[in-house]
């Protein structure tokens, strides 16, 4: 059972389009992470957010942590084929606990 639901599950867009991936839960998290995973590889950490309402930017990627620390979003501007991959959110219920992953969003950016 996974605590975090991601939407959409699959997303296929054209190069240059914008997109948003959502990560939702009924539970409160002390921190939340976003990962990207390519086929045959392990997930790689993109960002960690810890404060409700926090917004972090990483080049064309914008991450937001909900005010109540129950949800998060990832927005990608002007998507590129290199952005293709499985995007995963992971929440830490409290400090000292392990992270629990969301259901994943598979993104394909078509050249």
């Amino acid at each position, binding site marked *: 059972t996974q605590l975090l639901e991601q939407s959409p599950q699959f997303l296929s867009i054209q190069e240059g389009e914008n997109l948003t991936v959502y990560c939702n839960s009924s539970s409160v998290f002390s921190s939340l992470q976003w990962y990207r995973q390519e086929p045959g590889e392990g997930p790689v950490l993109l960002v960690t957010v810890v404060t409700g309402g926090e917004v972090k930017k990483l080049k064309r990627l914008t991450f937001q942590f909900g005010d109540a620390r129950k949800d998060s979003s990832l927005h990608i501007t002007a998507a590129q084929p290199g952005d293709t991959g*499985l995007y995963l959110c992971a929440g830490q219920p409290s400090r*000292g606990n*392990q992270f629990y*992953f969301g259901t994943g969003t598979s993104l394909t950016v078509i050249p």
Partner: protein
Amino acid sequence: GAGVSQSPRYKVAKRGQDVALRCDPISGHVSLFWYQQALGQGPEFLTYFQNEAQLDKSGLPSDRFFAERPEGSVSTLKIQRTQQEDSAVYLCASSFVLDTEAFFGQGTRLTVV
């Protein structure tokens, strides 16, 4: 080592066979995690070690699954009497301490036939 290393990368087992999956964490990392990942899904937590102590094994799906880290470094995940539903990628991750960045290995893809 430079990164988390898992072996074997691929394992095909006949139903009922026992398997052992190995994880070499980054040297000096205290925390070690095992996850199970179905195709296209997010990893599901299995178990967590701090040094040699297994602090949480709540995610292990049955008593056929067993993990150990006897010297606080290399870890082994053992699955006894494998079933088809055990087919998945098994990921290992390590971090310096619990609340720091975790680094993942490439995983072991287990196929039970």
